[in-house]
Each structure stands twice: as C-alpha cells, then as structure tokens.
C-alpha cells in the first residue's frame, strides 16, 4: 500500500467531500485507486482531480466511504493503484453526463466548451455545483429541487447530441443504460465509465464482471461499440456472494 497525507478537504455537495493529497504517480481521468481505511474496508474511488495534486470526491454511503468522509486534514489515506482503463481523451466538443458521484470521475474532463448534464436526487446532492466552467450546464434532480425534474435522458432531449464529438458518461448503471439506449443511434462517440462492486480491483475476484469482462481491468471505461458485448449491462448483476439478480 502507498499512503499520503490529506493536505486539504473541500465540500463537494452537502454531504460529499473532496480530499486532496500529493502523489507523484501519473493517474489518468477514468482510472481509480483502491482506497483502504485500515480496520474498516477498501473501496474503489475515481480521481476527480488528476495532476500532481490529486483529489478524490466521496459520498458517505456505507461504512468505508463514511469513514473516509470523516477524515481530517493531516490524516493519512492508504491506497493502491492506479487501476483500470482510462478515458480516451478526444478533441472536439464534449458532452459530459454525470449522475451522483459519477460526476467525480468526469470532473477533470470538463472544459469551457463542454455541455455538462449533472444529476442527483436533490439539489444539495449535486456535485461541484457552481464549481466548474463550461459552455452549458444542465442540472437534473429526481425531485425537481434544482433544474429539470427527472433523469439525464430528460435533459438530453433539450440538446443536440451531434453537435458534440464525444460523450463521457458516469453514474448509476440504470441511468447509463437509458443514456446508452437514447444516444446509441446518434453519431457522437460514447465513453461510459461503469460501476459495479469491486473487491480486488485487479481482475481476479470476478465480483465486478459484466458479460465476462472485468470492469476493474478491461474497464471501467467502455466504448459505444463494446457495450453490446457486455451482455449483463443494465440487465443482471451479482451481489457480494456472487448471487445473480435482475436489475429491472
């Protein structure tokens, strides 16, 4: 395990925080670290801030993420990685679609020409709100407390996807599934960063597998033309025990 000291902490939404630390490793957008909280657990976390000064943005959810959110400046974080296939950074106008903490792994891809669709359950869960510069930012909330009431696909209807070269999408699988089905017949390139339970992060435990591919190693980035190969995408997934269940 490597370790670093937390040099700064910033709120990223009402409950989510960004932890900043320094580390010399090159980590590309879309890659992740396995973050270890000794005695608590280990979870995969994408980098929201790449570069020498690195940042991870975490929402308190279960025990490990909640523990990480409670850390203070000066505390240590432990991690291994980076792991996974990064996004392929394309030239041209970008459409960024982030659901929940999914926006974290997309954050470093946002530029002044981008269209950003950010969604969350409620307004105060929107990540990095007013904290990035882009051409257009469409907010979407489940409850309508900010922006469009509904889901990212609802926001998509108000823009022209083909005025973008590429879309980068990250969020809950059912959200990505609906976005894929909506966008797949347009011309722009699609890059999805999928999310499934990961126990090992290095392609051996099978907990993150989808249609025979390991998300932690073959992904988490998958391209438009690869999605049909992921026969389980949006359909079934497995629990900690490996029990298969339907997502519908």
């Amino acid at each position, binding site marked *: 395990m490597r370790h670093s000291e937390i040099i700064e902490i910033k709120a990223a939404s009402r409950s989510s925080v960004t932890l900043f630390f320094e580390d010399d490793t090159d980590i590309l957008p879309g890659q992740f670290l396995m973050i270890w909280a000794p005695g608590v657990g280990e979870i995969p976390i994408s980098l929201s801030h790449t570069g020498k000064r690195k940042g991870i943005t975490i929402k308190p959810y279960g025990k490990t993420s909640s523990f990480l959110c409670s850390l203070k400046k000066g505390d240590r974080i432990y991690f291994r990685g980076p792991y996974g296939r990064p996004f392929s950074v394309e030239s041209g106008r970008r459409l960024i679609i982030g659901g929940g903490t999914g926006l974290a792994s997309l954050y470093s891809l946002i530029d002044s020409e981008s269209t950003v669709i950010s969604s969350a359950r409620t307004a105060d869960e929107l990540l990095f709100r007013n904290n990035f510069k882009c051409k257009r930012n469409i907010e979407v909330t489940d409850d309508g407390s900010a922006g469009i009431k509904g889901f990212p696909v609802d926001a998509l209807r108000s823009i022209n996807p083909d005025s973008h070269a590429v879309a980068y999408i990250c969020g809950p699988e059912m959200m990505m599934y609906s976005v894929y089905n909506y966008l797949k017949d347009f011309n722009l390139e699609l890059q999805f960063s999928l999310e499934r339970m990961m126990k090992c992060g*290095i392609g051996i435990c099978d907990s993150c*597998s989808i249609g*025979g591919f390991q998300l932690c190693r073959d992904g988490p980035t998958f391209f438009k033309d690869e999605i049909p190969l992921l026969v389980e995408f949006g359909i079934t997934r497995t629990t900690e*025990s490996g029990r298969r269940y339907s997502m519908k």
Partner: protein
Amino acid sequence: MPDISVTVAGIKFRNPLLLASGILDENGYTIKRILDEGAGGAVTKSIGTDERSGYFPPVVVPLDDGLLNAVGLPNPGIKEFGSEMKIALEAGKPVIGSVFASNSEDFLNLCSAMESYGAYAVELNLSCPHVKGFGSEVGSDPDLVEEIIHSLKSKIRIPVFAKLSPNVTDINQIAEAASECDAFVLINTVRGMSIDITARKPVLSNRVGGLSGRAVKPVGIRAVWDVFENFDKPIFGVGGIENAQDVVEYFMAGASAVQIGTAIHSQGRGVFRKIESELADFMEAEGFNSMVEMRGLAH
C-alpha cells in the same frame, strides 16, 4: 505440430491449461469467456451449501511475486449456482465444479447438484487456508478426508478430484487418505500474512490469507513430485504457473494437466493462449510429440 491435448480421468481437454478455482469463475459469463479465449477447461469458484458474502475488502494484497488473498469463499450457494453452470457450459468445454463443506453429507449434496448441473467432474476443496471450519481444517484430518471421499465414490458417477493443501506436515498422509479419488489437485495456497507498517495493521480484513503465484511454485513442484512418487493417479499441478516452462516443470514433476490462477493477475486472460503457443514451440524444439511423454520425466 505436437499434440497438446490431455485426457485426465477420462475427460479430454484440448490443452492442459485449466482455469484454477477461485479466480474469475464465480460468474458463468466470465467462465465462458475464459474458455472461449483459450483455457482447456475451468474449475469453478468453490461453492458451498449456503450463500456466503465472503470477507470485506481488502481481500487481496498484490505482492511482487504473487498474491496474498483471503476472499473468504463468497458464493451464492449451490442452489443458485446452477444458472452460472449453464452459462459456463455453453462454451462446450469441460467445467469442473469445485465444492467445499465440513462433513460428508454436505459434500455429497453439493457433488450431486454439480453432477446434475452438467459438471464434468467435481473438485473437493480440502485446502482453503483461511476459512474456519472448512478447507484445510477438513483437509488436514485424514479420517474425515477418507470418509468424505469414500462416501462420494459410491454415489457420484462423475470423477472426484481432491485438492490438497501444502500447509500440512506430511502431504502423502493426506493423499493416502484421499486415495480413492480419481485425481489429485496440488496445491492450494500457502498460509501467509502481510502487515502494512505505516498503518500498523494486517492488510487483509481476515488478517491471514493464502499465498499464490510465482512465490509458491517450488512448493507446488515438490508436492506434485512427492505424490507422483507414491500414488499411481493423475495429478493437476497448480501454483505459480506463468509460462510454458512452468507447465513443463509441473509435468516433469508428475502432473497430468495444470491449473492457472494468479498469472491472470500479471498477464490477463490472454495467458492461456500465450502459454498454449509457447508450449507447442517448446515441444517442437525439444522433440516431444505429446504431453504425456513429459509426465514424470524428471524422476
């Protein structure tokens, strides 16, 4: 072209390289893909009677020369596993059902279910080093091992393989107890531990785990050698296989086929195809026509 197929306990494998139990073989789609991408056969994750979530992460520590793991036998329970077997068997290659239990009755139920799911054989995990009440705790008790295998042999028609642990004083004593089986599988992981000195804690949530990969190859070679010297039975060699040289080393020690796990970590799923072609090259260069010619050759 040398013939790299092998027949073990009546089962024909197009190549001698099987996927080892516990690595990428819990999800039927994954097993199918690995078989499609070149493995000669696959052993499933070890399945028990009831659903288990396994241990909380960290469940694995990557080391320079291998892995330390304590996954904790997560599995959906034998009932749920039928659907995964069905998907895996679509590859049209041998799938072997690995099972674990603490008594012969449970072993029998698990094996019957695997048989009914179409498993080509069952592999008894008598050797997992990190779960209380199962694995090597069962596999280090010769009387229990003998009873389990004896009771299975009269009731199960598919071959029964016994996977033994290197973490015992005398592996031949356990092999003797298991000698009614149709083949031995040697070895499971070696008990080990890793502590993070800045966190001042063991890394694995279970603390103790099993060592696999390059580090344990000499341990596996020696186990296969010893059991080959004493028993006239097929042996699956497992432990630290990363290339064709390693496969040949296991064969010359006495293996009839091999299983590969940790090398998938260092080389990806492509490792099966890679070794397959290296193996044919080696045999051609050294004048071997078939795998069986190499078996036990160093004795």
